[in-house]
């Protein structure tokens, strides 16, 4: 997700400079890496091509706290956004952690953040931002009237963002620096170990070892709903199809609540938002909450034997068949044709 974040940062930087929106607009991008492993990560990041082209420096704050605790991380960002640190704008990915950090920074410096931004653009030399409201039924174009800009981006929406190399010439020859900073934090929630917020258990660490495709950035997503009827079907029908298509796996709230799969797979208003090239909805009825999480998919396929399923109104191709025969057939024919 770093590439998409850098693409968004680059676009923002170029537009702000061009439109001179903020008198203090800077012409460089700094990358902030926080958490216990930040120094190691910063070394790895140096191998990233985009990083080498667009980032002026990387600021490393090696905290003893995990990077998922906004109570510890947001005060670091507040310090960096103070005027003497020459950083005006803050961009982060729109994840559960990202939004916690973003919004806490907003409270700490009393600047209203813009979350879940889909695109950054301009009209009449004014930089603007687009985001969905009303469960993705309404698209809003907004502008920031504050002297700092805090935003979170929907990562997948920036994967095709072109990079305007000319605009970043000023840093082309600059050597990137890794600046290790010990940042003092006045606004930390906890003063002692006893009164802070502690993470007791984090399941994401358990899941990390699995070699699965990140569904939020996958080009193809296969998603299963209530129609799968039980966990065995969910696994035995969807996993081979995912493998064949190199697809990410998703699900609906109903599938999670009925125990067919883990809640980390859930796509929708609760759960993840995806926007792949191809979204294959299998046995999914299409509740509004689910549609909110996949509406931006380029092509949507519905495999469902219920002709009345609301998902069909939101699909490009509808295969009105029993999924228990259609899905294995699809998987085996894909293997045969090796498309």
């Amino acid at each position, binding site marked *: 997700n770093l590439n998409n974040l850098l693409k968004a940062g680059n676009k923002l930087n170029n537009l702000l400079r061009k439109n001179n929106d903020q008198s203090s607009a800077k012409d460089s991008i700094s990358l902030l890496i926080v958490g216990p492993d930040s120094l190691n990560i910063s070394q790895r990041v140096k191998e990233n091509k985009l990083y080498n082209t667009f980032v002026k420096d990387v600021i490393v704050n090696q905290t003893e706290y995990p990077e998922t605790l906004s109570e510890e991380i947001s005060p670091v960002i507040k310090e960096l956004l103070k005027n003497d640190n020459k950083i005006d704008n803050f961009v982060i990915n729109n994840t559960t952690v990202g939004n916690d950090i973003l919004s806490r920074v907003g409270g700490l410096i009393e600047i209203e953040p813009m*979350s879940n931004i889909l695109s950054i653009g301009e009209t009449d030399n004014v930089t603007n931002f687009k985001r969905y409201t009303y469960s993705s039924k309404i698209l809003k174009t907004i*502008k920031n009237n504050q002297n700092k800009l805090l935003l979170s981006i929907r990562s997948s929406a920036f994967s095709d963002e072109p990079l305007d190399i000319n605009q970043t010439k000023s840093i082309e020859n600059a050597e990137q620096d890794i600046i290790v900073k010990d940042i003092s934090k006045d606004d930390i929630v906890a003063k002692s170990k006893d009164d802070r*917020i502690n993470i*007791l258990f984090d399941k994401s660490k358990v899941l990390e070892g699995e070699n699965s495709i990140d569904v939020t950035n996958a080009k193809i997503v296969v998603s299963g709903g209530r129609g799968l009827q039980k966990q065995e079907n969910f696994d035995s029908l969807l996993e081979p199809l995912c493998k064949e298509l190199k697809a990410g796996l998703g699900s609906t709230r109903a599938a999670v609540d009925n125990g067919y799969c883990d809640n980390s797979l859930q796509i929708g208003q609760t759960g993840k938002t995806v926007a792949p090239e*191809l979204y294959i909805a299998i046995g999914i009825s299409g509740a509004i909450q689910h549609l909110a999480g996949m509406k931006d998919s380029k*092509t949507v396929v519905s495999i469902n034997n219920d002709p009345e399923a609301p998902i069909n109104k939101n699909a490009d191709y*509808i295969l009105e068949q029993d999924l228990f025969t259609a899905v294995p057939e699809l998987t085996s024919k894909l293997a045969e044709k090796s498309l």
Partner: protein
Amino acid sequence: MLRILVPIKRVLDPQLLPRINAAKKGFEFSKNDKFSINPFDDIAVEESLLLRTKYKDLIESIQVVAIGSMENNKDILRNSIAKGVDKAILVPTKESAGDDISILNECKILEKVIEKTNSNLVLMGKQDIDKDSGIKGGILGGLLNWPLASNAAKVTPSDNGKIVVERETDNGQSTVEMSLPGIITTDLRLNVPRYVSLSKLMKAKKKPIDSLEVALSDEHTDNGKIEILQVEEAIHERKCEKVKDVDELLSKLSETISSTKAAA
């Protein structure tokens, strides 16, 4: 002892599409539009009541607060009274708590309400389904410098006076132990809000709604922090084309599949 405050907001019924106004910068609502409590806030109200059922001795008070006009908010406030909260508070503002008031100002008003009610636990929805921002809990945490447990799927007070919260995260689940005072934002899986009977609703009509005046200083009354340039209906045009079998589906998809595989 927990003194719980639940901020609640009135939103357009989730099944309805709001009408865009002529200037294309906002919405027009009519008297016939159906409004209700923000569904995530409803879960927060329910959780406060469930906590009282399970941990009676731990709960000192449960109060709900809405921001805006009495006309707009009396129904959701009375509904909360009927469900069993101790007190319903209205902070009257000129603006409705829709697009006319900035999220930051909304949070600053809540900050003052928390101070005045001496609350030590805020239970609130993880997002408003109209603005879909999901940033209120975090902003409030920053303003108050209180910890936040967002996207709660399970809330359990622990013996040491803290609260254990199971959270929904992008990767699955995370469990945190939060000290008080603190903020919890509620996710869909936390509970299923109860319905309220007509007789309870009738009784609640006789109960008072407390008005609490909150003045923001001049510099904070500017609501134009984030300016809306345009609103439009998000069009996701779909072909809605029926295919007769797997072979036809594959022929429709072959190009997309081969190109994404090539890119991978």
